[in-house]
């Protein structure tokens, strides 16, 4: 496509501009930009060159290879490496991957907008407590609304502080994290909030039911993943999130309201965190206010986003990449567990994965077309 069309070599090319009459027609040469191949495979190959380096493709290959390795290992030694055992698939993989993936999407969407929320873990605790208390007192549906609503309100308050004071979100939400942690204890007291009778029936079926080789959570991930993809990559509001995170001045110059878009990103973050907190609460049945169990999720969620190709500086990331990133982290964790590696190995390997992914990301950012 870079070859010159014959019309390009017009005679007036060499002469200095002042002494030459202006071209009468502005549209001097027409060269079609972007003719796509006709065949399906040709189009796929053509489009692939534009997907390369944008995050999702490379990491997906890594995931597939790892998964293939696990399956082979598990087929060879079903007891030594029990990856394919229904207990592992349904009990571990289909519970842990969806939660981390949903939290990764939350953190990732906010990162695309150029912000962080380090109070994610504290938000989970508080939302889960509200969910448990409301469900026990007023039933499941109000409980769900209260849990998700708490997530949104907490994140929106964080967002308002960040957007209007212009304090870096890193600092503001780190500080707020302690506040929300305290709020959980204030509301619930120091003893754990626990689901009792209300967990049975609909709640269990919706959020933790065992279907043999997978659980309800996996269905939720599918639904949320599809909705998130259409929103982030195909909806105009999603487009604005990228614009605001990529170059806020440019977004403003074209009359996108950056404050509104950032607040919306915080709200989406909060909704997803609130929902994940329900999954976590139903899985574990009880939540410890001020406990550190949920704290790990803050950094793991950001890690999932980064491993999935989300830029730490905003403007870049993809839904598929983030889900794959979360799956990769949980698979590595699971693999080490199955191989009976000592606990600190798991932390160590996850750490190494994140750093490698970040370096890889940086390289890809340069290569992105």
């Amino acid at each position: 496509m870079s070859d010159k069309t014959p019309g390009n070599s017009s005679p007036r090319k060499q002469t200095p501009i002042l002494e030459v009459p202006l071209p009468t027609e502005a549209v001097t040469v027409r060269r079609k930009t972007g003719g796509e191949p006709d065949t399906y495979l040709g189009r796929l190959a053509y489009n692939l060159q534009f997907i390369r380096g944008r995050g999702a493709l490379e990491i997906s290959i890594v995931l597939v290879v790892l998964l293939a390795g696990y399956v082979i290992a598990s087929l060879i030694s079903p007891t030594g490496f029990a990856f394919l055992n229904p207990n592992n698939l349904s009990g571990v993989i289909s519970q842990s991957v969806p939660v981390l993936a949903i939290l990764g999407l939350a953190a990732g969407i906010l990162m695309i907008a150029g912000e962080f929320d380090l109070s994610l873990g504290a938000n989970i605790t508080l939302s889960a407590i509200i969910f448990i208390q409301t469900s026990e007192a007023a039933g499941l549906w109000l409980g769900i609304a209260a849990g998700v609503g708490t997530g949104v309100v907490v994140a929106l308050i964080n967002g308002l502080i960040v957007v209007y004071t212009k304090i870096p979100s890193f600092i503001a939400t780190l500080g707020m994290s302690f506040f929300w942690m305290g709020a959980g204890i204030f509301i619930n007291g120091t003893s754990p909030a626990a689901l009792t009778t209300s967990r049975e029936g609909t709640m269990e079926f919706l959020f933790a039911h065992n279907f043999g080789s997978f659980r309800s959570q996996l269905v939720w991930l599918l639904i949320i993943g599809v909705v998130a993809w259409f929103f982030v990559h195909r909806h105009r509001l999603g487009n604005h999130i990228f614009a605001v995170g990529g170059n806020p001045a440019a977004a403003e110059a074209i009359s996108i309201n950056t404050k509104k878009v950032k607040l919306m990103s915080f709200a989406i973050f909060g909704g997803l965190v609130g929902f994940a907190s329900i999954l976590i609460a139903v899985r574990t049945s009880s939540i410890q206010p001020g406990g550190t169990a949920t704290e790990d999720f803050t950094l793991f969620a950001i890690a999932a986003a980064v491993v999935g190709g989300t830029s730490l500086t905003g403007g870049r990331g993809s839904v598929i990449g983030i889900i794959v990133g979360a799956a990769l982290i949980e698979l590595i964790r699971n693999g080490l567990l199955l191989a009976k590696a000592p606990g600190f190995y798991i932390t160590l390997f996850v750490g190494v994965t994140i750093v490698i992914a970040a370096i890889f990301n940086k390289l890809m950012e340069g290569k992105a077309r």
Partner: protein
Amino acid sequence: MSNALLRIEGVSKKYGPNTVLKDVSFEIGQGEVVGLLGDNGAGKSTLVKIMSGVVDSTAGDFFWDGQKIDKMNREVTERLGVETIFQDSALVPQMTITRNIFMGREVTNRLGFMKMKEMDAVAAEVLDSVVTIEGIKSPKQLVSSLSGGQAQAVAIARAVHFKRSLLILDEPTSALAVRATEALLGYLTQLKGEGVSSVLVTHNLHHAYQVCDRHIVMNHGKKIMDSRREDTSVEELTAAVVEGAVGLQRFREGKF
């Protein structure tokens, strides 16, 4: 006499203690090409941003087609059909050409979902409509993968596509090669025929003299000259831009 498309009166701008624009007034006629000239730091880009509604003026009044505008902001200017190619090109490097061209003005269905195919097709079309730049493979390319001139072509394409009444170009040719520059300047004269006004900011006085109907010269935030093309010359413009009010005075005394 018919109303000017845009008239600004007594516009001033302060950044903290620094006065960047002092009591600037001028008008832009319907279908007129106006050259906005001046040395580095004269206040041209600031004026452009104020006229585009991106930056607030400290003082001053604005009249569109004779009607007073209460507040020049981006919503108002967009409604009026003002499009600007900003000097510090307002593109998002991590996004595709198509998404940059349609940023904030996406073509969507009723639910707000973007019609990607349609936008890609229009983007490919407008990319080639005014200046044709070699080496842009597809509107699906990221802007970060483009050269300076190619990126400038994207900014031009966007402004050209959305302009309706006034096109403001802040040094639009700074990264363009000769042929693309010619095409863009030629386009401005063509726009006149369509009744679209334009403001051209450039340091190339020959370019300006060639296409502009009127020239406004800024110096240290003040307007020091406002002449129709037939009343001035490249030499006079040069004196005004390079040596300011004093140089202009001297040039005129020497001449007359």
